[in-house]
Every structure is written in C-alpha cells, then in structure tokens.
C-alpha cells in the first residue's frame, strides 16, 4: 500500500527532524535542558500563534449568504442567492438552492455563509454539533471533506446508481449518455432518500434486438429491422416480441448488418424461428440443397414440396440456365495490391474445394466425419512411459510456442487482479460504502454540477482503529467503484492519512 499526504499541522505540532527547520522557534532539541534564549523565542512564538487562534474568523457581512438548516430534510436551504461556491457545491430542489450539511459547514467555517436555525445564527460549535448527526456524514467524514476542499478538490457524495456497470462501460455508454438524458441525473448528489432516482437503464432495451428473419429467401439484409441508433430513449418496436430471436449484444460503432446478413445467405427458404433451441421439424437427410454455383451443372430447380412452404407463399419450378449465362460477365480486375495478396496466399493457401475428398462429401455430416478422420490420423504418438502413467507431463510439445507461454503454463502462482471474481460476489448489505467522489482541482473551470463526469478518485472514509478490510470486502468495494481508483482515508481522531491499493506485477524472466 502506498501512503499519501497527511494532514497539514500547525507549526506548533510539526513532526520530526525533516521539518524541524520550519519550526518558528528554530531547531528543535532532542533533550530537555536547551538554552534559555531558545526557550524564550519559542514562548513568544507560541503567544503569537495563540493570539491568531483566538481571533474571530473574518467575515464580510455584506457578502454573506444566508442559509437555513432544515433538520427534517437534513439539508440547508439558501435564503439569499448563492455566491461563487455555487459552481461546484450545492443543488437545486423544488426551485430552491440548497446545500448538503458538509458543504454548508465548510462554507460557514470559511466565512462565506451564515447559518440560521429557528431564526438564530449558529456558531461554528453549534453548527458542528447540529449538522453532523447523520450516519452518512459524521465528524470523520466532514474532516476528510474539509481537508480535500482545502486542497482544492471538488468533492461530491457518492451515489452507487451512477456508476456504469461493466457492460455499459463495454458499450461505451457513459460518453453517449452524457449528451442525452442529462435531466435524469439532476438529483444524483442529494442524500435525501426520496430524491434518489434510479438511472434510466437504457441498455436493457439494447439487448432485445429483434432478430426477425427475413421471410423471403431471395432478398436479405434490408429486412432486418434493427435500429442503428439503439440509444434513443423511446421503447423500441418489437413486432415479433422479445421471444423472437436471440438477445444479441450490439456494438454501437460497427455496422450491424454483417453478422446477421451472413447467416441469411445460402438458404432459399428459412424457418420462422432462428434459434436452435427447437428440434428441427424437417429431416435434413432427405432434403438436399441444390448447389447453384457457377461450376455446377445444376440449373434446373424443381417445384418445392408444398409442405415445406409457409401458407401464403407459392413455389414454382425454375430453370436458371438463362440466368447463369448472364452473370459473371465482367472480367474481374484486381488491383495491384490484391493481385500481390493473391499471389502470396496461393503459395500456402488452397481452396477447400480443391480437395477431392472434400468434394466427395455431399452434406455437412460427411464433411465433419472427414475432418474427424483426418484429425485422428494427425494425433501425435505420445511416449507411453510419460503419458500412460498416473502423473503426466503438464504440457504437450505443440501447446507451447514461446518461453513466456511455457512459463505461464508451469507457473504455480498466477497473477491476479483485485477485480478477479469480483462480479460474482453477492451484494452484501454490510459491505463497505464509498463516501465521496473527488474531482480534480484543475478541472474547476470545466466542471458542471449536472454532469460531473468521471471522478479522479473515490474515497472511503474509515477509522484508523478498524481492522484492515478482508480481501473479499476490498474486491466488493473496488467493483462498486467501477474503473475509478479507490482511496481509503483513515481518520485518527482528527488526523487523516490516505492509502490506496497499487497494482503490481511480478516481473517474469523469459530470457533464459
């Protein structure tokens, strides 16, 4: 684990030797019995510090924003218009500007707002004792919040429903959702339960792609009613119902037609149901598909059996001879690049149809039998003394192509990532909670409260006295955080240290 910076201390509490020169009293002593002069200087310094401490916090009454604490809702409502802090803090509810308790307390300490409760202005002590009563926002949480705000970060409360799931990340959904559906995210930061809105689960629509097959065998491609822009928020039309076809995940950015249209070639007539889950109604050993390729003599197609056809589709006999003469008229002209590629390939590639044995196969079953037979012949003869024992070698020679692959196979320790298996862990109500999203300080100018984007890190606030969390708990909370790194803020009665897990790979020596 690597440690982050600890809280800045006043000069009266400087930690050790490294920072001694910063002590206003000069060098610190190691043993008592130092010089009187030094002690005097130190004493005067302390006086000065105490004087500063006793000063009232500066306030500008004219610029003070007035706010009222609403205990039943657990938020602070602004009574006069917000100042510059509104850019990164606060939220709107029912037309009013509001602040979360930690934000209000921080602004009170900075001297930017004046906090009222029952028409009485709260002192900082009273505010600490009144506002920090929630489970979600205790004194420790507030101290972490305040520390990060002083450093300049933008700190918002964490809301689990706004983390995109791995599937959504895979689809790159978040960047798309930013531009649409923003109004769904308005209430995201509020802690009040009734303001919590579930994120619109757009991807559920996506998985119900209609895979309606084309009814007519001769034309294909256009009849696939798939929406090219699946992120439109309106429910998609599913005329065939969701039972139709398979659920196919659809990559947004590639054209969809290729994967489906290839399956619609070949067959002249296709079944209604495209899933393989039903037992086929036809016996394929008796139905042959005529091969109409250019080098085949078959041009005459008899009228199909009417039992094979849907109700209102008539079949007829076709003589394709005249058509065959009209296709493939134009000489194929290859570009130079294509010719070169063909030349290269011809050296080692050969068409599967050039194989006589393959041509002798009249259906898939025979072809597969041929492949199996060939595979059997190719099986490498294994030495009996190695392979016929109870304990066999780990590897066969053909399995390994490089020293790195070999090492990978024989290694006892496999590298693992914190997220391995994390998705399979059950939801645990006792699991650690993430408390804050922290955004970079330098992004303040571009920051938008309604669409903050991906945080820099997420923060878990824990007490220094607690046990180190188990691996299971760490996996769960890292998974909960999505792809944003997680930092643990350990609070030890007023002093904070930050830790995070760092990924580390043992180096592998493959050069031997």
């Amino acid at each position, binding site marked *: 684990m690597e440690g982050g910076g*600890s*809280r*800045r*201390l*006043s*000069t*009266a*509490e*400087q*930690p*050790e*030797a490294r920072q*001694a020169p910063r*002590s206003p*009293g000069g060098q*610190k*002593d*190691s*043993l*008592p019995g*130092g010089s009187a002069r*030094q*002690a005097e200087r*130190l004493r005067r*310094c*302390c006086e000065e*510090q*105490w004087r*500063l*401490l*006793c000063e009232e*916090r*500066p306030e500008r009454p004219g610029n003070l924003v007035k706010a009222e604490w609403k205990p039943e809702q657990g938020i602070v409502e602004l009574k006069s218009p917000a100042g510059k802090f509104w850019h990164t803090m606060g939220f709107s509810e029912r037309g009013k500007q509001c602040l979360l308790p930690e934000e209000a307390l*921080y602004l009170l*300490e*900075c*001297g930017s707002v004046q906090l009222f409760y029952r028409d009485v202005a709260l002192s*900082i*002590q009273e505010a*600490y*004792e009144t506002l*920090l009563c929630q489970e979600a926002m*205790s*004194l420790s949480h507030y*101290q972490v919040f*305040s520390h990060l*705000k*002083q450093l300049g970060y933008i700190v918002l409360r964490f809301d689990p429903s706004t983390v995109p799931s791995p599937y959504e990340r895979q689809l790159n959904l978040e960047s798309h959702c930013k531009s649409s559906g923003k109004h769904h995210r308005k209430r995201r930061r509020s802690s009040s339960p009734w303001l919590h809105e579930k994120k619109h689960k757009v991807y559920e629509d996506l998985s119900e792609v209609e895979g309606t097959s084309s009814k007519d065998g001769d034309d294909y491609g256009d009849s696939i009613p798939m929406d090219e822009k699946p992120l439109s928020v309106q429910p998609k039309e599913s005329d065939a119902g969701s039972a139709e076809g398979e659920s196919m995940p659809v990559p947004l950015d590639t054209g969809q037609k290729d994967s489906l249209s290839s399956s619609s070639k070949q067959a002249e007539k296709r079944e209604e149901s495209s899933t393989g889950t039903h037992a086929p109604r036809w016996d394929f050993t008796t139905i042959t598909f005529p091969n109409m390729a250019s080098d085949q003599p078959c041009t005459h197609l008899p009228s199909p059996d009417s039992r094979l056809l849907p109700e209102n589709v008539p079949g007829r006999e076709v003589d394709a001879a005249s058509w065959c003469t009209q296709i493939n008229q134009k000489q194929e002209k290859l570009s130079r690049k294509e010719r070169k590629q063909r030349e290269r390939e011809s050296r080692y590639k050969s068409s599967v149809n050039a194989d006589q044995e393959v041509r002798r196969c009249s259906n898939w079953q025979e072809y597969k039998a041929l492949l199996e037979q060939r595979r059997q012949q190719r099986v490498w003869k294994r030495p009996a003394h190695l392979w016929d024992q109870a304990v066999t070698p780990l590897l066969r020679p053909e399995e390994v192509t490089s020293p790195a692959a070999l090492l990978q196979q024989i290694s006892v320790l496999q590298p693992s990532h914190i997220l391995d298996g994390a998705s399979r862990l059950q939801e645990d109500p006792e699991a650690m909670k993430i408390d804050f999203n922290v955004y970079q300080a330098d992004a303040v100018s571009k920051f938008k409260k309604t669409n903050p984007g991906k945080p820099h890190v997420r923060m878990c606030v824990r007490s*220094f*006295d607690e046990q180190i969390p188990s691996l299971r708990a760490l996996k769960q909370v890292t998974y909960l955080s999505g792809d944003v790194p997680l930092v643990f803020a*350990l609070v*030890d*009665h*007023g*002093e904070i*240290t930050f830790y995070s897990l760092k990924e580390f790979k043992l180096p592998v020596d493959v050069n031997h």
Partner: protein
Amino acid sequence: MAAGAEGVPGLCGAAEGSETPGTPPSPAAERPRVRRQRGRFLVWSPGAARALRERHRVWGALVGTPPRRGPRGGAAAGPRLPLQLRPEEARALRESGGATVEPVDEAEAEPSGGGAGGGARAALATPLSRAERRSRVFRALWGRGLHLTRGGKFGGDFLVYPGPPAQFHACAVAQCPRSSRAQPLGALLAAARLCACVRKALLLCAAPPEGAPSCTAITWRADLT
C-alpha cells in the same frame, strides 16, 4: 537489539522539569470544557485549548478549517479550533480532574471505558481491549510528565516527547501490545528498524490494572551490524 529503559529521557529517574499529574483539580467552573459527541471529543474555547496544552500537557489536534487566504495572498494560516482530543486524553483529563467532559446529547450514556468499573472486573482472565490498554498506558506515561501525541505515523500508539512537541523531537514510539499473547518477531523487528531509521526508541508498554506500569525499550544495534 538491546532492551532496557536507558536512554529514554523522562522515563527513568525522577521526572524533571514537568508538572506532575495530579495538578490539584481546579474548581469545576474554571476547568476546561470538553464536548463529547458520538465518541469524539472537541474543545471549542481558545482559553481551554491553551490551558490543556500548556498546563496539562495534552496536545490533541487542531482540526478546524483554516480561513481562506486574503485577497493579497499571504501565508496560509494554520488549522484552527476546535481542538480534538483522543479518547485516552479525554479520559485521563476527566479522571485527574483536569477538565470536564460534557455530552452534547443528553441521551448519550456515560462512557464506560471499563475504567470506572475496575473493581468489579477483578477477573484477570478478561483481556483488556486495545482502547483500554492504550488508555492505561497513556495515563501512566502522561503521569510521569511526558508529552504524548498520536503515533500512527510510525506504526505505534503514541509518540513520546520529553517536552513540548514544538520544542523537542520525539524520543520514542510507544506501542501497547497485548501482554497475554506472543508477539510475532517479524513485526517487532520491523517496528524496531523503523524507529532506528527515525532515531527514536521503540517502547513496549503495559499498564495492567494490578501491577506497576512497565516499559521496555528496544533499540537496533547499528554499531554491531
């Protein structure tokens, strides 16, 4: 490594130049007031904070948000009130009469801490909790006139100073291990080595309810390596 209590000023021999604990308890009205809310102890009055630090040698941590820098910049001010005390500091103050601890919400029960019921817990078999051990050790070391602050930076329970932390370097890192259980040697070595790097002694302290407090200092002998 050598063990012994030598070389740790303030711990052996008479406590020199520091107030003994038991500063006679001041009348209740004048005592610094400590506010307790949900296990956290805060001191809000500057006078009280100063008294706690200068007279009672209890340092705590200043946790208030510093004010923003002025428009002309200027040095960043240090942190401000409130002063937050650790549980063992608050308890030691309460027991010695140095301060009064007030609960913020009346409904909060008095902290049991186990200390008040010491007589009832005559059973030695009950192992002390970590907080309880630290509390007793704090009381013992503080009672000898030493200044103690948080030791989390160096993997211990306390940092031990012979005088005010502003004026002196810490001389030792104090840990309060369970005396009933064997300590893993590796952890001990790691702690001793760390302390040697930062030029402090490692103190293993125990203050059992029945018996005198004891400290063992461990140093890594770099001169023999």
